[in-house]
C-alpha cells in the first residue's frame, strides 16, 4: 500500500488529506498522471513530490509502504 498526502489547494480540490492506494511499482510521475485522470486533480506537473519526507524525482519508483506527499509551491515564511 502507498499513502498519498495532500496539502493546501490539492487537499481542497480532492476533498481529503490522504489516500491509501495499491500502486507500488509506479513512478512518482505515473502516480501524478493517475491522480489527474482518476481524481481530477489539476496541474500536478507543476507540483513537487516527496517520498518519505524527502523531495523525490518524478522517475523514483514507489515501494510498498511509501508515503508520497504532493507538494504544491510552498509559501511559508
Amino acid at each position, binding site marked *: 500500500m502507498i499513502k498519498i498526502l495532500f496539502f493546501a489547494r490539492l*487537499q481542497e480540490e480532492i476533498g481529503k488529506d490522504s489516500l491509501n492506494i495499491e500502486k507500488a511499482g509506479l513512478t512518482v510521475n505515473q502516480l501524478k498522471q493517475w491522480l489527474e485522470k482518476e481524481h481530477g486533480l489539476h496541474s500536478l506537473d507543476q507540483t513537487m513530490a516527496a517520498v518519505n519526507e524527502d*523531495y523525490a524525482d518524478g522517475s523514483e519508483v514507489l515501494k510498498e509502504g511509501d508515503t508520497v506527499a504532493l507538494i504544491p*509551491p*510552498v509559501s511559508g*515564511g
Partner: protein
Amino acid sequence: MNKEKRFEVTDHPISTESVIQKVTRRECGAITTFIGTVREFTDGKRTLRLEYQAYKDMAEKMLEQIDKEVQEKWPNAMSAITHRTGTLEISDAAVVIAVSSPHRKTAYEANEYIIERIKQIVPIWKKEYWDDGSAWIGDQLEKTPYPEGNPPKGANDD
C-alpha cells in the same frame, strides 16, 4: 512545546524570547532575529487573516536541513527556527528565526539565508483571506520550490 527543540513547527503563538534563548551562548557576540509578521496590505489588497498549513514532520526535517547548510557555510553560527501554523491575525508572527555567532556579519548573512531557504524548500503553505475571497498562495504566483543549491537572486520579497 519542547524548549530544547531548535527547529519547530507549532500551532501555538511564538515567543521570540524563547527562540532567542535557544541560541544564546557565551561565545557569541551577536544575535540576529527575523520575525515574519502578517501584513495587512499586499499590493494594495487588504488581508483579513492568514491560515498556514504545514506538512509538519517534513517541514521540521527541512528546517534541520537548512541548519546543516548554514553550518557548512558559517561554522560559527547557531540557529533556531519556529514556524507557526493555523489561523493568524494581522501582526501575528508566522516565523521567528534566531541566529547567534561570535561576530555580527555572520549572524545577518546566515539569518537572511535561512528565510530565503524557508521560502524555497519548507513544505508550509499560506492561505490569504480577503474581503472578497481567499486563495492558497504559491500557485497563482507561479513560484516553484527550489530544493537544492543556492537561492536564486531576487527571490520573492514577502
